[in-house]
């Protein structure tokens, strides 16, 4: 029988850390996984920005592998099943990318390599630096003698010069393996869990360097049939490294990016410099080993121009896909309107003309026939427009089906709208989506909260993606033992 770790974890609110109690090894009947159970006792507000249900929804969305079961007060249990059984690869540790460092960091990093030759230091100390890159660096101004010189013999001036040349030289984008993205496919499945989706579009951008750090932006836009209204602003769900951002929405880079897009051109109503309106949920996830937050509580991503532009691009891509559905709807409404106009106004027009001109009944019948012919032609044109729009949409869906982004198991298969971003020139080796690692995102920040964790750790190295800017686990993570990845057990106790 496999073994797993079971423990009770208490949250020390004052020190903001978990305290592990009653740790023990138990039998475990599953190959891997984590199970976290906790009870929240306190004054809780449920709906709206920064409220519990929004937090749970957000967590559900960006963790397709998560199975969530909860009960609010005396209400019935709510169970949300996982939509992805694919075991996410835990990202391997990745060397830093040369473009992600500032000069001081570059020199400090070099200090770790002592007598190593400068060229070797670049190749072994950084990712995306190869022999070919070294040749490019020499071509761009680094003396060949410097490449062979030991790092500890180089002057600050030489480092400065080398740093500038590296900055100017085009390198491959940083590896996506270093970040835990949700992935388009998983995001597309996961968004269906939030409610009755009319249609949606998801976009996962390739990694980009923003403010010297690798960043991946993922966006899911969905229109719901059973939430929100045409007059209300869209619901914006923000995520930083899979953690829902609950507060201070106005100052966040994600909000700034959403407001900067002209959504009217995609068919969504929007007042100037504000969020668009409609029964939509916009989910924007920013993933990076180094997210710059605006405040110590890590609730707001700093709105630097580069990051806002990157998020904006992702939103615009998703908006373009969304607009195909909206445009088709408009065409449909147009046809409906035209047909109803013919039926409604045609006879009234003819009757009025006959009454005023005092024409006979025979003329009336003839005029009605003529009118039908005329307006029928227009309706046929509108029908042709609609079928054109439908053909285009079907072609797009076929393309996506080939890419594996349509799900026959879902009743909403027609609604899926997603596209792999191919407008970046990034090296394609890192396109594999890492999905979700078995990490608890339970954020037990309520007084008196305790959690019991049963965990079977993994033999694979834990995702050390540099300085991950935000630990998502306030409950518990790895500790011990053997074998392969672990999945949770039912045997956890509740305090």
């Amino acid at each position, binding site marked *: 029988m496999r073994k797993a770790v079971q423990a009770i974890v208490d949250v020390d609110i004052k020190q903001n850390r978990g305290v592990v109690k009653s740790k023990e090894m138990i039998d475990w009947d599953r190959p891997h996984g984590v199970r976290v159970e906790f009870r929240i006792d306190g004054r809780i507000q449920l709906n709206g920005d920064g409220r519990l249900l929004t937090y749970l929804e957000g967590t559900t969305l960006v963790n397709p592998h998560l199975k969530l079961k909860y009960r609010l007060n005396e209400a019935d249990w709510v169970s949300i099943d996982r939509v992805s059984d694919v075991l996410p690869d835990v990202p391997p540790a990745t060397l830093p990318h040369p473009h992600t460092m500032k000069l001081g960091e570059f020199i400090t990093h070099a200090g770790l390599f002592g007598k190593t030759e400068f060229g070797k230091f670049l190749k072994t100390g950084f990712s995306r630096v190869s022999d070919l890159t070294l040749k490019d660096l020499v071509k761009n101004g680094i003396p060949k003698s410097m490449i062979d010189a030991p790092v500890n013999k180089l002057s600050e001036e030489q480092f400065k010069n080398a740093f500038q040349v590296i900055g100017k030289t085009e390198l491959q984008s940083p590896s996506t393996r270093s970040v835990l993205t949700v992935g388009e496919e998983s995001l597309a499945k996961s968004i269906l869990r939030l409610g009755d989706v009319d249609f949606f579009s998801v976009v996962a951008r390739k990694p980009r360097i923003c403010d010297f750090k690798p960043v991946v932006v993922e966006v899911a836009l969905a229109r719901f049939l059973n939430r929100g209204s045409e007059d209300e602003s869209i619901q914006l769900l923000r995520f930083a490294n899979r953690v829902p951002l609950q507060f201070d929405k106005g100052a966040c880079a994600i909000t700034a990016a959403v407001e900067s897009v002209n959504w009217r051109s995609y068919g969504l109503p929007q007042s100037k410099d504000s969020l668009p309106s409609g029964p939509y949920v916009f989910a924007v996830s920013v993933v990076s080993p180094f997210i710059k937050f605006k405040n110590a509580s890590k609730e707001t991503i700093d709105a630097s121009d580069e990051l806002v532009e990157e998020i904006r691009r992702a939103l615009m891509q998703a908006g373009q896909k969304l607009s195909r559905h909206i445009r088709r709807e408009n065409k449909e409404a147009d046809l409906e309107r035209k047909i109803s106009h013919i039926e409604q106004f045609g006879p009234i027009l003819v009757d009025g003309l006959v009454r005023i*001109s005092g024409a006979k009944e025979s003329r009336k019948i003839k005029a009605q026939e*003529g009118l039908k012919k005329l307006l029928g032609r227009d309706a046929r044109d509108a029908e042709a427009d609609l079928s054109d729009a439908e053909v285009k949409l079907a072609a797009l869906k076929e393309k996506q089906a080939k890419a594996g982004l349509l799900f026959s198991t879902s009743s909403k298969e027609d609604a899926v709208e997603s596209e792999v971003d191919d407008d970046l020139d990034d090296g394609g080796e890192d396109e594999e989506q890492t999905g979700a690692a078995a990490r608890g995102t339970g954020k037990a920040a309520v007084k008196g909260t305790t959690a019991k964790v049963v965990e079977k750790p993994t033999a694979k190295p834990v995702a050390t993606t540099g300085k991950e800017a935000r630990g998502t686990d306030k409950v518990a993570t790895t500790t011990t033992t053997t074998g392969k990845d672990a999945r949770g057990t039912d045997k956890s106790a509740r305090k």
Partner: protein
Amino acid sequence: MDKVIRIRKLTKDIPKEVRLLCDSMLEELEKANRPVLEAVKCSLDNSFYNPKVGYLTPGDKRVRTELNVSSVQKMARVVFMLEVLLANLQSGAVNTKRELCYISKGKVKRDPKLKALDFAGQDESDAIIDFVGDMLEVYREELNCFANDRGGQTYSQQLVVTETLPDDSKAVVDLSALGTTPFQPKNKPQALTLKAKKKIEFCLVVESEGTAGSLVANGMTRRHNCIVMGAQGVPSNGVRGWCKLIQEQLKVPMFFCGDLDAYTVQNIYRTLKAGSAASLIRNADFSAPDVHFLGVLPEDVKKYDLDCYNVNERDPAEARSLKKAKDALQNDPFFQDKKNRKLSQILEWLIKNKKRCEQQAFYAVDPKDPQAFEKILVDKIRADLIFRKSLSCRSPMEGVGCAGH
């Protein structure tokens, strides 16, 4: 019902024209062709101004409405409204636009087949009535549709108005016998004949009705042989037609006094003098081309040290007014005409200085003297008249008083 007095001698037989129009539309439908309705395009880009004519006239541009699925609603509504108006013309009944909106609603309520035609609001029915007028090239008054009376309160000790009533009886109104009550022209056409008991020196139209009342209460009409009229903002058709009547029948110099701001110059004064782009087909009878702008002029601000306000560009109405002034300079043929150079210079001054000055600011010149404003106005008028006399012609700058030259 009373016979309705007409504004002009109309050569058109409106009911006949309407029947012919409907008959031709029906004929087109029988042939499965698309009937077309055409109307004069009433907009600035189809407006022309010739100072010799004196008002904005329409160009050749037409608005064409061809029957298709998008326009079938409008066409059905036009025919529906034509039927309502035709019934009014035949019975002699008259209505306001609002009443016509409710008449339409009443018809729709009684006939479920017409439900689709129902107007959501008065703006929708107004647009159809305006289109009918532009299409037939007739005034709304000629369709027995009249507006409410607004503005034009007139005071004079010399003016006598004789009104010929529909039954051909005469009603004589001596304005000097009305006491403190003004004579108010109606938006409904009136057959009026004007006579002056003594030679009238000038006619002054004041933008603010309140200020006109104050001038009269302080004795202006007793001291001067004049007509004082309150415009009450943008002059209504009644006021414009009344000014035209005074100009034509009495041939007295006419002056306009209003605020120094873009709205007054381009909306109030321009409409009084040359009509508006929205009513191109009616400007001939509803404008007074001889009216002169007396002020407030930019030079008055300096000369009398008048209090000004800065235009608040954050206020949407004021910002819009400034933008419209810029547009007027670029697109309005009235302000582009060289005869109106002085007026366009006023707009340029307003855009540049972003200031506005109210007509009441003249009351700050000599607060102890209740007649100070009157004296300034009379001085400006006399200076203008002398200047014009000296030239033995009209002011070189058409439309702007010469006071201050």
